[in-house]
């Protein structure tokens, strides 16, 4: 005796039953390929040329049959779009259920006909439109204008149009750094994707300089997979700049690269609960890898992260920033949590340092923040270098969006009128 397995609840029903006796799902359309009778599956191998056949159309009908509504948990749903009936059966091995009566077939044909008509009217006939010329022209024009406005101030290195305004967060940031006692340990998390390196290094350059100037002991960690390399690159840059400025390489104990904190938010949580667990791996990992981090003595007192004098998080994604705020900040025991954010993280993190409860005590945001901080502490770094070009770029970008948007709107309207067809552009 043939049996049909129900598609939605998986239980088996006698083949001549129309609905699953357990979950009331319609069996005809869903039982295809699940029929237990081997002869049906093994012998019949249809091709795409299979003509629409009574039973197949019968299956087609069932998703739409008004009398079925409410039987199948989903058949009754308006707007719950049945994929099987319209699509799946076009290419499906056809199976002959035991019950297929004349009336079924006739009903099926009529329904199929109406279905086909409806589909022909509804379905957009598919044409693989080649990339429009206007689009690529638009792209090239935008690129040209943008490049030009950026290149001008770079070439004739024009002084910054107007120095960025100092936000209160910057001043707070500087206060907190100046409150640090020399030799204190600062956790500095390098948490940005490689693609954001330019922006984040411009934003963080002045901060790192200030930390180095107060000979802070910097502990580098990261939660992003490429983070350790970024940290090592950072160490290299710091060492080279130190050699350029002071002339003497800084003591190896001053920067320690702890490497990766894996496991995302959960990993951060367990790091903030007992850092020593990660410390073990980190110290072992560090052996003979990074010249700047051979000596790992000072880290070993990192039994709890409240021993840290400050935590500075440099990140470009709001998710990472929120992880640090939610997982680490509660454990800091009042020690400040600082953030150096990319512009794309700003809107979502805003509420954490503007709100009534300030969970983040100071932020440097993007190039503007970096330039502002360099201006505040009176050093000339990458942020100030790119500042004027950045200002031009942002202004021209806004203008482009408005003007070109208007032009493009008018253009498309004209084109549509020319075509005179009501084809939808959206």
């Amino acid at each position, binding site marked *: 005796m043939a049996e049909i397995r129900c598609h939605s609840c998986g239980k088996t029903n006698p083949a001549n039953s129309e609905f699953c006796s357990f979950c009331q799902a319609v069996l005809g359309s869903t039982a295809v390929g699940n029929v237990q009778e081997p002869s049906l599956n093994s012998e019949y191998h249809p091709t795409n040329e299979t003509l629409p056949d009574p039973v197949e159309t019968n299956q087609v009908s069932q998703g739409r049959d008004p009398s079925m509504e409410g039987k199948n948990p989903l058949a009754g749903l*308006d*707007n719950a779009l049945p994929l099987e009936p319209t699509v799946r059966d076009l290419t499906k091995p056809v199976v002959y259920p035991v019950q297929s009566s004349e009336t079924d077939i006739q009903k099926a044909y009529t329904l199929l006909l109406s279905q086909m008509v409806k589909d022909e009217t509804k379905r957009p006939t598919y044409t693989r439109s080649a990339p429009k010329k206007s689009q*690529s022209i638009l*792209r*090239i024009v935008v*690129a040209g204008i*943008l*490049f030009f406005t*950026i*290149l001008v101030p*770079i*070439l004739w290195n024009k002084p910054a149009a107007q120095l960025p305004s100092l936000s209160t967060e910057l001043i707070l940031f500087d206060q907190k750094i100046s409150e640090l006692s020399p030799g204190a340990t600062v956790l500095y998390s390098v948490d940005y994707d*490689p*693609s*954001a390196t*330019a*922006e984040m290094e*411009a934003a963080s350059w002045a901060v790192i300089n200030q930390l180095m100037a107060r000979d802070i002991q910097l502990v580098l960690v990261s939660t992003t*997979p*490429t983070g*350790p*390399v970024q940290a090592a690159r950072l160490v290299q840059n710091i060492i080279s700049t130190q050699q350029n400025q002071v002339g003497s390489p800084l003591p190896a104990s001053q920067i320690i690269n702890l*490497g*990766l904190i*894996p496991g995302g*938010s*959960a990993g951060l949580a367990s790091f903030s609960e007992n850092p020593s667990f990660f410390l*073990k*791996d*980190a110290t*072992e*990992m560090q052996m003979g*890898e990074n010249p700047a981090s051979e000596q790992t003595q000072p880290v070993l007192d990192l039994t709890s992260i409240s021993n840290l004098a400050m935590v500075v998080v440099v990140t*470009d994604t709001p998710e990472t920033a*929120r992880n640090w705020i*939610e997982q680490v900040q509660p454990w800091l025991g009042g020690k400040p949590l600082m953030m150096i954010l*990319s*512009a*794309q*993280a*700003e*809107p*979502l993190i805003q*509420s954490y340092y*503007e*709100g*009534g409860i300030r969970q983040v005590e100071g932020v440097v945001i*993007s*190039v503007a923040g970096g330039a502002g901080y360099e201006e505040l502490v009176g050093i000339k770094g990458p942020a100030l*270098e*790119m500042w004027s*070009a*950045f200002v031009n*770029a*942002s202004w021209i*970008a806004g203008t482009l969006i408005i003007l070109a948007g208007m032009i493009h709107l008018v253009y498309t309207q004209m084109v549509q009128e020319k075509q005179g067809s009501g084809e939808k552009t959206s």
Partner: protein
Amino acid sequence: MSTADLVGALIGLFLTLSIFSYLLGDNYLFRLVIHIFIGVASAFVVVIAWYNVIWPQLIQPLLYGALTERALTIILLILSLLLLTKAVPSLSNFGRPVMAILVGVGAATAISGAVVGTVIPQVIDSIRLFNLPGSTGSGIGSWSTLFNSGLLLVGTLTTLTYFHFITRTDSKHPGQKTAWLRWFAKAGKFFISITLGAVFAGVLLASLAALVDRLDFIVSLVEKLFNP
């Protein structure tokens, strides 16, 4: 500038220019570079995974760990080997239980993260909205504060109700929401577009910074080359 740096900078110049060529259209140079990129980046991540996780947390405890640590790590090792069978399509069934564990833990973490990380803090903040002095931008006077807090509350609620899925079935045209829900949804859409606009602007600024950096890099390199 040392030769290594010079070579590196020249390579960087070549790569940057070939990526920029994508703006003119998809071309072979761009394809070449992104294929190099895929290879290099993936290899880097694999090496870091080995150096930072697998070696220190799987191999080393096995070799040098204490007894209990070793015992635990052996179980872990077995799980890892089972998972590794996923790399071979014919054996991949052995890895299924491990994936089940991973999926279960992942789902649990997702739930707890969503509840503890998002729902509770956001709800509490929305509840504490009123009488939060200084939580507003132009926070002069209690009236503007009140207005802002009210706006914040309305925005949160309407945005939340914008997503309401189930609609009345006995309506003339199904798929339409009831009238008041539609008004809520409109208000919610308003706030949603503002939020997304803000985030979009942030992304645009970040990419502009990258663009400025690249152009700066090109210009300074060319200057170095022609008048050292």
